[in-house]
């Protein structure tokens, strides 16, 4: 539908899985996914901007519906953080969790938009030939978030326990401080430090990528004829409804894991 060449299932899916890439230098690493960055930044501005707009006019008296909605959201996030993190959560952890939840939720929700209308429209208006609308279906985004959380984890670990305390913990937990156990402890901790950002990012990426792909497969089916269109529409509706759960759940899980990792870094073992 949005390709210039003949339309086959391979070219259709391949087209929708192609990033709008801009080269900024030499080498494979020196590329930017323009679609991911622009959509992500746009949704961030919309989401965080909305919160900021409401909060600027926030009153301690009777709140209007808009403020009540934002307060409900903030209270929900704050309640989750309160159950996990024991410290001054208002200084950083809770607002960070709110950011993660709102931003990831909006980026995931891009999956609900009809992809061919969106991409086709962008191609007609801006003449862009490739556009991936879901930033969280780009592993760069999920890794970026997970690595940021990972760095925060190490930062808070060192901040709370000191550099010596952190290194001590790397070698002396979880099995004990015997010198013979140091390699085992270190290995264990390394696995944990590697697996945390991987599982954190790949869970979200996998869910969103799979969701996007299933929509694409259904739309491929929809192009095969009337029966295909009818069944694909019904299944597409079912998948979209089920996807509401996935979108919210994955955003929630990402937020909770962020809070869990950061609060684990605050605890001494």
């Amino acid at each position, binding site marked *: 539908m949005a390709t210039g060449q003949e339309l086959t299932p391979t070219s259709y899916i391949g087209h929708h899985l192609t990033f709008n890439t801009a080269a900024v230098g030499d080498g494979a690493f020196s590329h930017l996914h323009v679609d991911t960055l622009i959509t992500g930044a746009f949704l961030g501005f919309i989401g965080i901007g909305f919160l900021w707009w409401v909060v600027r006019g926030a009153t301690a008296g009777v709140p209007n519906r808009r403020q009540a909605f934002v307060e409900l959201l903030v209270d929900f996030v704050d309640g989750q953080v309160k159950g996990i993190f024991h410290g001054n959560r208002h200084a950083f952890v809770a607002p960070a969790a709110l*950011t993660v939840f709102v931003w990831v939720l909006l980026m995931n929700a891009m999956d609900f938009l009809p992809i061919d209308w969106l991409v086709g429209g962008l191609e007609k208006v801006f003449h862009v030939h490739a556009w991936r609308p879901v930033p969280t279906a780009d592993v760069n985004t999920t890794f970026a978030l997970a*690595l940021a959380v990972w760095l925060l984890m190490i930062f808070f670990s060192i901040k709370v326990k000191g550099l010596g305390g952190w290194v001590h913990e790397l070698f002396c937990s979880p099995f004990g401080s015997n010198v013979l156990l140091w390699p085992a402890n270190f290995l264990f901790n390394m696995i944990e430090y590697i697996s945390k950002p991987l599982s954190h990012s790949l869970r979200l990426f996998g869910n969103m990528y799979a969701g996007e792909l299933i929509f694409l497969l259904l739309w491929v089916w929809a192009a095969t004829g009337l029966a295909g269109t009818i069944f694909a529409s019904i299944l597409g509706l079912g998948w979209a409804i089920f996807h509401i759960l996935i979108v919210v759940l994955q955003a929630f899980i990402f937020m909770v894991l962020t809070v869990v990792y950061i609060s684990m870094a605050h605890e001494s073992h």
Partner: protein
Amino acid sequence: MNINLTLLAQAVTFALFIWFTVKFVWPPLLRAMETRQKTIAEGLAAGERGRNELELAGKKSAEVLREAKHQGADIVAQAEKRAAQIIEEAKAAAKEEGDRLIAGAKAQIEQETFQARESLRQRVAGLVVAGAEKILEREVDAKAHADLLVTLEKQL
């Protein structure tokens, strides 16, 4: 799966959004919510206090009412007693006044009686002297018989 510079760019965007939320979104809303929480807590406490005070005031007003009734009854009793006393006093005063009037009247009557008797006596003495003159047909020397006349007068 092609990792590239997008990773760093998204991480920077993420950091900026977190910074913005931490700095500008969370604190004002939290402040508003906490202020409201405090206001509501204070309002509830004030309501509770008000209810207690109302209960206390009810008890106190009942007590005051009871005391007022008591005092009123006292005052009525005292007033009745005083009225009785005043009536008694008035009666006593009236009786005294009456007695006094009676005594005055008696004294006056006595005096008038005395005066009447005196004038009567003089008149009788005059009559007696005139009668005696007529009887004697001669002039009685009043001076010569003054002693006699006075004696007569006194005997009447």
